[in-house]
């Protein structure tokens, strides 16, 4: 039973991935992130969508980036968004699969809302329609996206579920995005100039001080 389920999940993931790959090939101008692409399946068939198991990364992009200077990793558009005092921030997260990441990304299995899907229709290569992604536990909360494709282009991405206290849907555009990845922490031996860490109390504080002094003297 479990075995069958796994088979189904895997094949579903493969279909979804292929569909997205095909879609990407057509889109080229769209997402430029080195990370993978969101795995989406159409809403029309009643079969629930499933995200591929495997490494995950979390992507995010601002909706406010009016400039077209995308393709830069991580912090694109900072010159424009540097003073983002607007409390009405809107953002977007989508869970993506990752491929060939150089960092030590941890494998993470993404739970899905309904794992009992027997078949999943993948979208055609950019076929017009509205596609709902799987609800994914994106580590800091559930995320679910809905993508609208018109004339073979992504015209809108809505967040059906989003870990925001002021829950509401937020829109994104398909531009440069900071990407969150994961790794297991490990002690580093490299020499550093200074250390950032939470302020300590009593013993820890004294310890911190001594290391700070040692660093200063180094």
């Amino acid at each position, binding site marked *: 039973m479990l075995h069958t389920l796994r088979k189904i999940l895997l094949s579903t993931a493969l279909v979804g991935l292929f569909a997205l790959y095909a879609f990407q090939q057509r889109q080229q101008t769209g997402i430029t992130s080195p990370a993978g692409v969101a795995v989406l399946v159409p809403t029309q068939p009643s079969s629930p969508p499933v995200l591929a198991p495997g490494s995950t990364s979390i992507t995010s992009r601002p909706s406010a980036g009016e400039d077209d200077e995308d393709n830069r990793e991580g912090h694109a558009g900072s010159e424009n968004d540097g003073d983002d*005092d607007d409390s009405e921030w809107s953002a977007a997260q989508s869970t993506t699969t990752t491929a060939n990441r150089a960092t030590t990304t941890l494998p993470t299995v993404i739970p899905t809302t309904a794992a009992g899907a027997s078949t999943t229709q993948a979208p055609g290569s950019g076929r017009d329609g509205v596609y709902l992604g799987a609800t994914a536990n*994106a580590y*800091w909360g559930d995320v679910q996206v809905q993508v609208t494709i018109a004339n073979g282009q992504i015209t809108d991405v809505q967040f059906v579920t*989003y*870990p925001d206290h002021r829950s509401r849907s937020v829109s994104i555009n398909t531009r440069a995005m*900071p990407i969150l*990845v994961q790794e297991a922490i490990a002690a*580093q031996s490299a020499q550093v100039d200074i250390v*950032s860490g939470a302020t300590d109390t009593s013993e820890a504080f004294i310890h911190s001080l001594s290391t700070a002094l040692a660093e200063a003297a180094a």
Partner: protein
Amino acid sequence: MIARTWIDMGMPITVRIDDPDASEADIDAVAAWFAAVNDRYSPFLPESEVCRLNAGTLRRDEVSAEFAHVLDACERARIETGGAFDITRHGAIDPSGYVKGWAIGRASDVLIERGRRHHVVCAGGDLQAVGGRGDGQPWQVGVRNPFHHDQTVKVLAIPAGGVATSGTAARGDHIYDPRRPGPLVTDLASITVVAPRIEEADLMATAAFAMGRDGLAFIAARPHLAIYAITNDGVATYTEGVSTHACR
């Protein structure tokens, strides 16, 4: 290169200046600045503006222009973070959470005004880096292991920018979520935020830590910020490229 570490505002402060003509007088100026901030904003000194405001012997419209700026910045931060950053507690204010980052940023400004182009000012684990090291390399900023304080678990290459870390190792539970009274519930062990300025990095780290898991999304939504967050399971979630983060 000259460097000094001392204690003020109840925390270790380290300044390093790589400019060839740097002098002890530069560091003295920074030390004088921190001492002045401590006198003016300490919640432990009865004559500080903070204490007089809380005691009711000073009215909000009587505070100094500088203190008014601090209070305004705190209020903007409260709005920006949806209430996760709030200096009001039990009816009294304690702007320490902002003053620290602000003091670091202004200390760096003091050095810039003195012509020092390559320096780092670190207080209580938060820092502002300027101009890269004297050898032209970015500042190598270690992220402390929240579980083993003598270890660093990440090295960030920061040409310039503010780096702040909030965590449970912080003094007792000085970070709390004002919207959720009671003990702090989070599985975040620490969160390090990189921003162009330490003022923002500091308050964003504080707010994000108070938010717990939601804090990661909160920071990720701001493309000019980068994070390195560590959870109690020893896993780090971080912005891709954070190890070579460049702030302008």
